[in-house]
């Protein structure tokens, strides 16, 4: 399925840093470095997922009740948006590999815009929860006669921390993409040198993966019992 292009050594002064013996060595090193970084990210979110697992086990019902407060329509739209943005980003990497700079620039813009819409929707959801006084630490009220109110509050605490950390990652990603866009306009990338784009694709893909789990764990559990 994958065809390959060989990186031509020495063409691009920018590409090759002095302490690497060859550009292939450099590419391999950069990819390894990025994946190791993603491994640390997995562990970082992993800690939160573990907290989620422990508390959901302790308060199964409460987590479903909390989840029933989520807006699943907005949630699924966001999921679709994020998937689309990953798709455009993957295409961006492809364009970079083929040296199509115009395409690359437009695909980056598309990714940024979709990412921004995602965040907009996300913040509108936060705002809606806030209006319903479901913002622990800021303005929180249990519903009358809510079973296990502590568990429900815990659900919201985790919801804000986890989706919040995810949103921060999105913001950083959008920032990176903006820089890539400027670099593209400045003609810094080519068929030979484009590792920043590829590496950013990895990052964006990771952020997307995290959301798949957040969607499954926060939006879906409350659906089957009616709203």
């Amino acid at each position, binding site marked *: 399925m994958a065809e390959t292009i060989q990186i031509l050594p020495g063409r691009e002064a920018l590409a090759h840093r002095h302490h690497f013996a060859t550009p292939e060595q450099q590419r391999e090193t950069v990819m390894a470095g990025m*994946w190791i970084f993603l491994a640390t990210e997995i*562990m970082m979110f992993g800690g939160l997922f573990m907290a989620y697992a422990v508390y959901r*086990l302790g308060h199964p019902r409460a987590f479903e009740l909390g989840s029933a407060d989520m807006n699943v329509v907005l949630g699924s739209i966001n999921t679709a948006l994020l998937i689309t943005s990953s798709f455009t980003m993957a295409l961006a990497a492809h364009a970079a590999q083929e040296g199509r700079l115009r395409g690359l620039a437009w695909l980056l813009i598309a990714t940024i815009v979709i990412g921004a819409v995602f965040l907009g929707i996300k913040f509108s959801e936060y705002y809606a929860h806030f209006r319903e006084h479901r913002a622990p630490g800021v303005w929180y009220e249990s519903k009358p006669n809510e079973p296990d109110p502590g568990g429900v509050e815990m659900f919201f605490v985790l919801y804000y921390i986890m989706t919040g950390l995810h949103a921060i990652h999105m913001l950083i990603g959008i920032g990176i993409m903006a820089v890539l866009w400027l670099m593209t306009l400045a003609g810094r990338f080519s068929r030979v040198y484009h590792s920043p784009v590829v590496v950013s694709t990895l990052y964006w893909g*990771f952020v997307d993966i995290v959301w*798949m789990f957040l*969607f499954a764990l926060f939006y879906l559990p409350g*659906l*089957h019992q009616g709203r």
Partner: protein
Amino acid sequence: MAEPVIRRKTYALVYIAMLALTLATTLLAFLNMGPFNSVVALVIAVIQAALIAGVFMHALYESALVRIILTGSVLWFLILITLTMTDYLTRSH
């Protein structure tokens, strides 16, 4: 080391599969399957994650080192969960 280039058609297929899976997981969540609701949701999420990592992020096409890093970190996350759960699932008095 050669750089993998993946056909756009492949990306497109994965994209469509991802959207379909999202639809599926959302609809399935409306059925009451008891504990299996979470199982289904998680399984689909794992498939989606694998698709993104494998294709959009090229993990399937990269060197063994990359795959070792990826599986390693997932494994370590599972260690974290499993050993912690030995506590929570067997706690008593």
